[in-house]
């Protein structure tokens, strides 16, 4: 009941999907339509996982008054207030809910990633060293590609963007293709393991 039935569901439905890939029969189409309707009806509830986990983590921090617990209050207050604003004043443009998104959520999430430009510059200066022949090749390829992408590179010499395009189209292509074939086989193997009930970590712990 706890493990066997979920496994039976995934194995049965999984193999029906394998068959669906090959058989364009009406039964197969009806099966997919049924799955679509059910999957859509199940999907909104998945968001509850995120909400509950956030409340549990931050609720515990507040309850135990761990160092910096005040910031957990900010997180939960932000969550409750934004959701409240959406339900009470609506989610259309010009509402407090959208104001929060435009002026709070959006600039902060964009800035978080912008920080990485500083770190990568610092890493380029302090850690990117031509310690071996292989590292030198990596470094030279990186420099050519960097120059090849900007107008200044083409202004220095037309060979720079041309060499950059060659690097991407030939050695880079070969490298990424070989890795991709490996990954593709890995995905297929993992999917098969899930379907055959060998891979079960997604079921979580317990019996």
């Amino acid at each position: 009941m706890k493990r066997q039935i979920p496994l039976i569901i995934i194995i049965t439905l999984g193999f029906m999907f394998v068959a669906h890939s090959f058989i364009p029969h009406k039964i197969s189409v009806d099966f997919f339509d049924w799955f679509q309707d059910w999957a859509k009806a199940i999907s909104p509830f998945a968001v509850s996982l995120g909400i509950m986990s956030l409340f549990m983590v931050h609720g515990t921090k507040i309850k135990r008054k761990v160092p910096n617990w005040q910031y957990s209050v900010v997180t939960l207050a932000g969550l409750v207030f934004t959701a409240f604003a959406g339900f009470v004043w609506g989610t259309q443009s010009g509402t407090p809910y959208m104001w929060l998104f435009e002026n709070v959520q959006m600039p902060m999430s964009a800035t978080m990633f912008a920080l990485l430009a500083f770190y990568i510059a610092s890493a380029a200066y302090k850690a990117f060293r031509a310690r071996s022949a292989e590292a030198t090749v990596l470094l030279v390829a990186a420099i050519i590609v960097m120059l090849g992408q900007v107008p200044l590179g083409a202004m220095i010499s037309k060979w720079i963007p041309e060499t950059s395009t060659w690097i991407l189209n030939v050695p880079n292509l070969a490298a990424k293709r070989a890795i991709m074939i490996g990954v593709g086989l890995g995905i297929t193997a993992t999917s098969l393991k899930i379907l055959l009930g060998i891979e079960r970590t997604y079921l979580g712990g317990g019996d």
Partner: protein
Amino acid sequence: MNKNVIKFFDKIQNIDRRYIYLVVAFSIIIPLLIPFNSPTYVTKPTEDIYKKIDSFAGDENKAILMSFTHDASTMPELFPMEVSVLRHCFERNIKVFTICWLPAAAPLVDYAINTAKEDFDVQSGVDYCNFGYKPWAIQLPIMLGMGDDIAKAVETDSQGRKVENLEIMKNIKNYDDMNLVIDFAASSSSITWITYARARFGANIAAGVTAVMVADNYPYLQTGQLMGMLRGLKGAAEYEKLVDVFAAYESEDYPNGRPFSNEIIKETRVPITGDTVPYKYKKARIGMNAQSVAHIMMIFFILLGNIGYFITKKKEI
């Protein structure tokens, strides 16, 4: 070697990282404050997308789908692409659909549409339609369902209207009609489209990706599984230029834009200083000026770091 030189490199090897941060900031601030005209070279992966979209111009039986698979964090690279593609569609009377898979992407779709439609007489449900936010968990059922019947798979648009009743859906049934999907993403999500929509239904897939993802996508580009790719801010700048040079071109001979031509691209320089082009349509090209300076600075850092490394290493020996 001169002792002072060694001492200098010793010192700058251990420089506080915050000075590096300052240099990074200025290398971007200065070129943004003082804009200058620099050439934008258009590459084939961008050209291919432009030509494909342009081939649908004025065709009632064709449409494109723009899939937004990113949040605000990668907006600087992807937003100018999205605005340019929408502007192209609105200029050339091409039906365009939008869909997104992350809650945080939903308002970005609206921003992109609102930014581009200001200058055009287009109507939601007639010229374009935003399918709105659909959760990640049902991406595959919808992606596969659209191969059979788009209206059935998507059901409602972002305004809650039944998609099947919308005027734009006339003659648009599945991927045979919605013949190009462009996935704008900061991840490898275009591979999902390739795996499901292309492998099963033969849909044309293109990608608008952040620069991080570019190198990984080349194998798909070579096989044609990706028919084109907009690559980071440079891809956005290239598309901005193509729309300016062809789709937004106005003259007596070409009142609705002119056809694509490699000769014209080579000859044309669109100035980004001045008011010829509105700021929103040249944001990526202005950004590319700063990108040039920042790349030179990065290369300078790499070289300086390595010179310092070899000099101090020699000293130790």
